[in-house]
């Protein structure tokens, strides 16, 4: 069971990635595409965080006044930093996409990809 627990996160993240891709490319609603995008990106973020763990380690914040900290006591801080960036990027993209969406809704009165395409072809 422990074995399974050690691999389990990867399976779930894989599934989430799949769900995200499906949402982005398979859904017709523009909102749903954006939701899929968010799911996809946070799955990647989770993946990085899972990789940053190690057993018996704790939050990468030094105790006050502690000297000569041992690296194995703390989880790997680097992926955390990267993921802070990734979260910010994903929020930025979401904001821009929402701005586009508001304008698209005003222009087409709809957020369905197919209908917008029909409208554009006319």
């Amino acid at each position, binding site marked *: 069971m422990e074995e399974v627990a050690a691999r389990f996160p990867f399976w779930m993240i894989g599934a989430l*990635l799949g769900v995200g891709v499906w949402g982005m490319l398979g859904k017709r609603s*523009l909102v749903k595409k954006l939701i899929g*995008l968010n799911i996809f990106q946070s799955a*990647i973020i989770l*993946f990085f965080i899972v*990789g940053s763990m190690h057993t018996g380690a704790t939050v990468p914040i030094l105790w006050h006044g502690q000297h000569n900290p041992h690296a194995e006591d703390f989880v790997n801080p*680097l992926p955390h930093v990267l993921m802070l960036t*990734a979260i910010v990027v994903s929020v930025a993209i979401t904001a821009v996409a929402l701005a*586009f969406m508001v304008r698209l809704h005003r222009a087409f009165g709809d957020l369905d990809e197919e209908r917008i395409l029909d409208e554009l072809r006319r």
Partner: protein
Amino acid sequence: MEHLPILIPLPLLAASLVVPLAGLWAPRAVFPLSVAAIALSAAMSALALAEVVAEGEALRYTLGGWAPPIGIEYVVDHVSAFVAAVITSVALMVVVAARRAAAREAAGRRGLFYALVLLLLAGLTGMVVTGDLFNVFVFMEISSLAAYALVSLGGRAGMFAAYRYLILGTVGGSFYLLGVAFLYFTTGTLNIADTARLLAETEPNISVAVGAAFIFAGLGVKMALIPLHLWLPDAYTFAPSSVNSLIAPIMTKVGAYVMVRMFLSVFPEGYLTEEVPVSQALIALGLAGSVYGAYAAMGQRDLRRMLAYSSVSQLGLLAVGIGIATPLGLAAALLHVMNHALMKGALFLVAMSMRMGAGVSDVRMLAGVGRRMPVTSSVFAVGAVAMVGIPPTAGFFSKWYLSIAAIDEGLWFVLAVVLASSLLSAVYLFRVIERLYLAPAPVIAGGADDGSESDAAASAQDGGVRESPLDVTLPMALLALAAIVLGVLNVVVMERVLEPGL
């Protein structure tokens, strides 16, 4: 000039902060500021290129004063200096030429527009000079976000194209990030040189293989490799002219550059050919793309859409060069990066100039424009000839080296496909030239009313069509001229710049 590497993106970044404020309070300063920043960046890139060529080794720069695996470093070697110089100078030309178009298309929002242009360029140059895998992602997202925003200026169709571009572009970026995650978890570092060293030591395993696959899938989206090219035609067609003439020549090229970087300095030699079939996939998709793009371009009536599909075609050739992965193949690809940037810059500027001067971008409506807009039309002719690959234009030589590299590897069909796609591009490009220069002739069949309609349009236009002013035509002509001069002098580029770097 120890700070040279950072000085390539920094002027752009700094100016992008000032420009939106200038847009609010001093709109007149927006354009000069932006151009000055781009010119500065271009000068710094050129300087860096000169220094790298003179010194023969890469300039390294630690950001924040932390040595590489700990901090982030900038590496300006032959290849990155070359690409940086190409994109900044092409961008300079395009931005200057697109001033009037931008003033109209981004009326009242010029500050924001130019700030985003600067950010786009900052992102691209940042991607080029960085020596850190994650930093590539961050700057890729900067440039992509700016590109989405700029594309969205093109009315409601542009907005929709931008939205789809955003979704697909983000898929690409995220795939890249996922790939980097795999590499990071296998090696423990993000620095490119360090990753290369550690990857060479590790046993080939499926994580790295899939990581490579994800990275290339992501970059494939960014450089519009064939099944991932879906965003490109709409984005290029519906974006305002001032934007697509900027994005088309440089944006996808940087994606290609990162691919070259992956082959060159991330994965061990032969890894991407033997362990993971990335090379083979690139060649196959590139060939398919080069033919499909040219074929699709033949059926287009809108000049910009035609050029967009032609980009798909040319990028396919680029991918083939990268996929061949020998030093000669990569050199051919990089030379093609330069050539295609010059040619596409010139051609999209032509499309812009024609929209401004003749008010049309439908190929069928361009009849007789050749006489009214002589400079624009001759730039188109030169660009087209270079695109087809007729010596001694630059376009010929990248195809030439590409063919040599392909034959060297025994890939005969590559030669055949390259030649076939050149022919196809001749078909659609010369069709436009016919239209431009050969008076209203209803050659392209399609019913009598079709012909008479375009005749009527042509005669109606005749009064209104006039050549664009000098600030549009001069940069355009310079780009076209560069396509010829650099073609004749290609050996200099190859021997002084590309070969030492590969």
